[in-house]
């Protein structure tokens, strides 16, 4: 059976990051009202209280090709009215299939950069890939790297205080954080031309960093300062890539590694089994922390597609008993949930819903984990404290699950609380590889 990742609409990964920018006025060319309604609804719920502009679409508009003129007028109008630094044009499935002549749009209007961001969900496939496309599209607009460059460009949606903490560590090694994207301003991206090294902190910015390496000769390091081994390896990689004083690098890397270890020792998870599923891309890093804290994570289900950066993370996880399932699918995940007992589930909405129904403590990855730091000792302590708290709620989850179970005496896994019932599950489990 053909299977695409059960990702949130991939394009939303991009819309989300662009709508968060303070000096951008994004335009979303939707495939239809159903599509645009979804993006608008979700964006206004948890991205920003900012308008989403779109040219109207209908079969007649597509057939006549009249939309492009409207789009051009709209771009000019928005540029003149708001004078933003950036007007990103998110082109979703239908407009990208139709193939609008985006090269005919002005590239600059006054101080405003007009950037086309291609996001046909059927070929982008994942949320993570869409984020990579945003960075890639914006960076493509930049001039070549400057001659005098220094510091590290951090790439990845991380906790607001993470760049500050990382900067503090890097300064002890003789370098610093140059800029961080995706950031709230266009200048955060512009500053990338001054950096000497790219650090994609989440394992999916492979296209962006590859292109910057080819076009601008800017090298990149893999991994992130997460967990004991991860922190140590990342700091060494940065030191090596920038030719920093080896003794300083070794000293700082060892210090930070020991700090993370101390944090992990305060939150041991030995003997606990976790199921982790995510579509954000940093689920790899979370699993690292869980494993280093002593937990067993038999597999990681991720909507991220296999890419060079993820391979490195995958290897580390495989060496520690975790199989990575790319292109995660709801049905597979739900099937896997009943395959063995779990102490805690960190995953997507549907997966968590099933886990809670079974009395397993569960939290939604995007809401609970993506809003926290994972980096360095403070990040490890923060996220593991949340995990501990969730584990501690086991009895509460069980009590509710028992109440809703068919037989209140014995908690039997059932899928009964939603109408209408799903008849697909069993068949899909049978057909899947799990």
């Amino acid at each position, binding site marked *: 059976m053909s299977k695409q990742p059960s990702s949130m609409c991939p394009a939303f990964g991009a819309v989300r990051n662009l709508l968060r920018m303070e000096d951008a006025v994004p335009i979303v060319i939707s495939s239809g009202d*159903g599509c645009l309604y979804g993006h608008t609804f*979700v964006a*206004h719920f948890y991205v920003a*209280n900012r308008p989403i*502009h779109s040219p*109207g679409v209908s079969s007649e508009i*597509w057939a006549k090709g009249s939309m492009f003129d409207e789009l051009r007028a709209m771009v000019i109008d928005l540029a003149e009215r708001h004078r933003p630094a950036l007007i990103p044009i998110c082109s979703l499935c239908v407009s990208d299939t139709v193939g609008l002549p985006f090269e005919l749009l002005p590239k600059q209007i006054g101080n405003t950069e007009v950037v086309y961001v291609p996001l046909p969900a059927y070929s982008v496939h994942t949320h993570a890939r869409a984020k990579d496309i945003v960075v890639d599209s914006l960076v493509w607009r930049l001039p070549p790297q400057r001659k005098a460059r220094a510091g590290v460009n951090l790439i990845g949606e991380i906790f607001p205080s993470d760049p500050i903490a990382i900067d503090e560590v890097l300064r002890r090694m003789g370098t610093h954080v140059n800029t961080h994207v995706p950031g709230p301003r266009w200048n955060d991206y512009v500053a990338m031309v001054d950096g000497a090294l790219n650090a994609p902190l989440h394992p999916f910015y492979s296209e962006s960093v590859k292109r910057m390496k080819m076009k601008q000769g800017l090298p990149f390091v893999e991994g992130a300062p997460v967990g004991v081994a991860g922190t140590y390896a990342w700091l060494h990689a940065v030191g090596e890539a920038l030719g920093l004083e080896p003794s300083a690098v070794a000293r700082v890397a060892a210090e930070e590694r020991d700090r993370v270890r101390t944090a992990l020792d305060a939150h041991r998870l030995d003997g606990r089994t976790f199921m982790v599923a995510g579509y954000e891309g940093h689920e790899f890093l979370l699993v690292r922390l869980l494993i280093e804290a002593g937990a067993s994570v038999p597999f990681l289900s991720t909507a991220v597609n296999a890419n060079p950066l993820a391979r490195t993370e995958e290897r580390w996880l495989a060496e520690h008993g975790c199989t990575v399932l790319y292109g995660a699918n709801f049905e597979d995940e739900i099937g896997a949930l009943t395959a063995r007992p779990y102490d805690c589930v960190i995953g997507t909405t549907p997966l968590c819903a099933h886990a809670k129904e079974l009395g397993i403590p569960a939290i939604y990855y995007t809401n609970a984990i993506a809003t926290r730091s994972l980096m360095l000792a403070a990040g490890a302590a923060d996220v593991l404290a949340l995990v501990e708290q969730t584990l501690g709620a086991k009895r509460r989850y069980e009590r509710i699950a028992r109440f809703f179970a068919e037989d209140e005496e014995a908690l039997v896994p059932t899928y009964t609380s939603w109408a*209408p019932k799903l008849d697909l599950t069993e068949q899909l489990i049978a057909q899947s590889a799990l």
Partner: protein
Amino acid sequence: MSTPLRPGIAAAELSSDIVNTPIRKRVTDLDHAGGDTGAMQVFAALADANVVLDGPVGCHVMPAVAVVNYTDSIPYLQNVTCSELSEQEVTLAGTLGVLTEKVTAAAAGGRQVFIVSTPVSELIGASWSAGDAAVAGSPLFFDAHALDDDEYAARDRALLFLWQHRDHFVPPGEAEPRKAGPSVNIIGPTYGNFNSYSDLAELKRLVAGIGAEVNLVFPFEASSYDTARLAQADATICLYREYGCSLARELGLPTFFAPIGLEPTTTFLRDLGAALGLQAQADAFIRREKKTTLAAWQDIWRSTHSDFFANAPIAIVAPPTYLEGLRYYLGDELGLPIAFAAARTGPESVPNAEVRRALTEASPSPMLVFGSINERMIIAQEQLPSRFLQCSFPGAVVRRATGTPFVGYAGAVWLLQCVCETLFDVLFANLPTSAEPPVQAQTSTGEALREAVAIVAEAGKGRNSVISWSQEAKELAETTLRRVPFFVRVSVNKKLRAEAEHAARERGSEVDAAIVREIVARYRPR
């Protein structure tokens, strides 16, 4: 002023023409879903249905996971999948291959499969006609007009589509016999209707109250094979006017709309009673309700609470049912002045930019704004003093407790309670507060008397202690006050004057526009 909705509608009067929200050249913050979503919301509500959306993964996850979790508080619709189109299908292969796989899986266990087109599949001209033979069972293809229809038009067509295919659906056992007594169909809700769980509960309570039975709640409490049973009722009630009329007209039974407001509910009960031969029971129920459910209404109405109403202007932006219902109930029956009312969707829909202008320019600002998150954003962005009450999607909300109806007598009580509580809240927010500590005495009375003279003399404003206001400052203060709801205007006026004059004294100047602006900014709602 509008007239109350006439609850009893002759079948011939029901509009069967599919009405659509106009497609505009430019859209800011779209407020309605498209045809594929609307169709899915109907078919997925059937207990025996699996829905396969013929589109890329986002066309499935957006409406059936991400949005439904915040409209219906359901983690995801378990009976919806999609064909998961990739580049291969869109550019080369077409959707039939992947669609057949998905439909085959979905048809397992005898489920009725509905295939719904999406913008992408419509664009590449995908169709199911050739796939039919390959799959056991009888999947049905529904052309959602995803590029053109809004969610309401699609719901209306999908409901009619079910009726037209009623012979296609095979009941697993004996068909349920006709109810012994008089019975009604309730058409609606589907998934994704604001407040529908409460509205349905209240409507069922009213029906039971007059001694009638519910034949079928369609599609929400039905299976596809129940569709033919719609003919076994004595009347039809459309929960909302936005969709279901085409089906109601085809059924040809006496048809009613769910009532909003006191008088419309009374008329509804009497007319429904008459149509079902239950006049006496209807009258008895109304009498009972006056002493029970509506006792609360009468008490609130007799209280001073209602004295605020005439000076509490409101705005309503909602789909037609709630727009007309609230306009009549809050405007005509309760007497709250309607500052502005606009249709959210449908042919009369008002673009967001016009809603923004109307809300911003209204003087005084509406004290309460009933709307969606779009109005909520306008209030925040334009820093209006209005309070927001949600009465429509979009906008994440949890409305699964069934005690918050808009329709029926219980709805009249609930809405009255909401209005009063929100007005109390406005009052609270405008009273002087100890959140700011008491002002400390800096001087003795004697010193104050001497200093005031000195300051006034120095500023060249004459010998009296009245601080003068520049023309611009006066105008600005007036404009500001005009926007403030009436019953708190006196408090706000006092506060503004005291603080402005205090600032002027400190600076030794008259009250100028800059001072007023500073003070106004301090009191902007956050």
